[in-house]
């Protein structure tokens, strides 16, 4: 077992977990932050994406102690005083989900993208988002939501 401090969504958590336990498992099963999802366990689907010091990170693929000392943001940490971020708002407005299980990871990846690139072109969006899988196939709407959140007119792919 290993003891360490995790900073998640502006709060500090004392964690006591096996040294090999993934960040995803600790977030979900120790801290009860279940908005971050398990999809594949090998960094292929993006459902577990969180931000570590702002960088999109597959929480299923790193041991939790490796995240100590970083600032972690999960989907639960985006809202500010009950206000959605522009990315969250855009997903809602475009109806960019069906079952919604991929949505947390999609929003985290898109949030990181738009922080670095304010007005990404289509290729840049594909590059940033291609590691996130939506099995329901709502990609056209997610693309439209990202364009909407970046202030670009929707390309009409959404609705």
């Amino acid at each position: 077992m290993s003891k360490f401090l995790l900073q998640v969504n502006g709060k500090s958590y004392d964690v006591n977990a096996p040294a090999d336990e993934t960040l995803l498992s600790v977030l979900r099963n120790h801290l009860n932050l279940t908005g971050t999802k398990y999809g594949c366990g090998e960094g292929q689907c993006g459902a577990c994406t969180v931000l570590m010091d702002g960088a999109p990170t597959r929480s299923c693929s790193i041991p939790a102690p490796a995240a100590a000392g970083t600032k972690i943001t999960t989907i639960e940490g985006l809202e500010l005083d009950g206000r959605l971020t522009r990315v969250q708002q855009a997903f809602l407005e475009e109806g960019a989900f069906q079952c919604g299980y991929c949505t947390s990871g999609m929003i985290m990846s898109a949030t990181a993208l738009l922080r670095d690139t304010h007005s990404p072109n289509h290729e840049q969006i594909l590059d940033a988002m291609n590691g996130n899988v939506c099995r329901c196939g709502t990609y056209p709407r997610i693309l439209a939501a990202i364009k909407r959140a970046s202030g670009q007119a929707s390309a009409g792919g959404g609705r």
Partner: protein
Amino acid sequence: MSLSELHFLGGASHSDSETKPQLDRRDFLKVLGGGLLICLTPDLAWSQESGRTFGGHELPKDINAWLHIDADGRVKVFTGKVEVGQNIRTSLAQAVAEELRVPFDSITMIMGDTDLVPWDMGTFGSRTTPTMSPQLRNMAVEGRQMLLEMAAERWKTDVSRLVAESGTIKTPDGSKSLTYGELTRGEDLVRTVGDPPLTPATDWKIAGTPVPKANGRDFVTGKHQYPSDIARPGMQFGAVLRPQGFNATMQSIDTSAAEKLPGVQVVRDGDFTGVVAADAFTAQQAVAAIQAKWNVPEKQGNQGLFEYLKNNPEGRADDSNSGWDEQAYAAADVKLESKYTVEYIAHAPLEPRAAVAEWNNGKLTVWTGTQRPFGVQEELMHAFQLPPKQVRVIQPDMGSGYGGKHTGEAAMEAARLSKAANKPVKVVWTREEEFTWAYLRPAGLIEIRAGARRDGTLVAWEYHNYNSGPAAIGTPYDVKNQRIQFHPAKSPLRQGSYRGLAATANHFARESHMDEMAHAAGTEPLAFRMKNLSNPRLKAVLEAAAEKFGWGNAKSTPDRGFGIACGTDKGGFVATCAEVAIDPASRQVKIRRVVQAWECGAIVNPDGLRNQVQGSMVQAIGGALFERILFGNGRLQNPFFSKYRLPRFSDTPEVEVVLLDRKDLPSAGAGETGIVGLAPAVGNAIFAASGVRLRHMPMTPDNNVIRA
């Protein structure tokens, strides 16, 4: 899995098709690869469709079983259907709000909780909109009538002088009004409901509009709790030892290393071996620490699979001849014979199977992801010898299923482990487990012989489907002389329902072959279809798709091809046009643009419908181009997302949907049939560009490269 299970798992879709197989009425209880699957007679699925009895389960006819109005006017609606992303939590609430005359937001849908909702067969076969929606609307109409009568009684006036509007009964001049809550004071509405007249779609104000997804905000904030997110006080985590291959038998087992891990309890019960631990990580470690040796029997793999399916029938063929005349075929001017094949593919719902089970005073409660909460309840009742009241299954809106979550394996495992540990236990399957121990979309072989006259009139159609399934096996084209048969086979892998069932395979084969016939007859593919069609709904979607796409505006070239396909199943009509680009050097295919026209009667929620139709086209790309299960030696070889390619952003073409709203026709379901058109449209486009006819799904598994 047997034919009957296959039918059961998705069988609700072919009640009124001419391909209904004759099956013995019997119950199935099968143990497959360590997972328990109980299957009811398929006749139950068909009887559900007729809307009468439900295999001994009488549907309640009283209002209070289906809806309740609280004293504050909030409306609770109870249904055994479940939300898996198809948006019925929203569309059913719209239908009830419409008939009850209440605001949409006043409705809360209580779904898939066996303690609270009327028995339901399950959520499959696109049945929610055509069957559950009218059921709930009936209740709402009768509820509204009762409220009108209650107000009339209070005011000593005639019912016909009162109006129901926005949760209130009032006099036409508005001088008197009472809210629904004031009228019911939270008491049950007790009345037996018959068949009251429903509001026609042309008068809809809430139904028929693009109401956003109910509780959508919970999905963008991470607040929604999926089955795998459920936590209970004192909950432990479980994991299950899996055999090394299908139908493996255990030779030896040593659990001592696992038992030495802190807080680990090993549970053995017959063939079942599992562990319980305080945290999920330790549970996984403990299972990995169990030393077990297995005998894995040799089984059929991908190599020679289609010959195997043809040569290993199970049960007798389902024959739906209209009368076959070999002479008519022989006399045709244009004759073509082809074989089409489809591989096994996985549903791969992003949330794998998951369950939390807890026992309280002999009562078992399980939260799990399933399309059949009452089916899972029944599995648990059988396994633990409990009456229905002692088993409660709750199905939180889940990370989808696509036909892949009819069974309750994780629920059963969590219940066994929880009973042994005497604590609530959560089991979440790994991705590898979900690939390996769930079930797959059947592989199949389809053989077609067709004949046409020189003018393009079809005169003979012979069609044999081995193992893939009978959904949408009948041709919608006017062919007098046809022989269509489904041949169930002994599947080497566990197989079952899938979104649209075999309709995808059957449309791929039929629409590819229609394209082959068109080219052989020297007729333009759209014109060839129209010439042989009389169904006005199918013709209408073909015309709509062709118009939006600009069909015929440009000719296919070696690096750019256009294809078209159409079809119908489960009350939905679809036509798809696709444009593909082919890289001349690498021969790689990219789907550039897809236009799909869709019609399923009166549209309940155009935005939700558009989302379903778009999504099914994107999902279809996987099965069409690259998804396939690789297997041999009794195990899967690619049970990981790193080895099983799913459609991604970069695979997604420009997607356009044309919805035809037929307010004069009853609404049909739309969760499935939108998936059938893409593969043949893309295959036909590839042929138009390259001259290469791809008759195998997936068509380009090798990095999207066309191989002749």
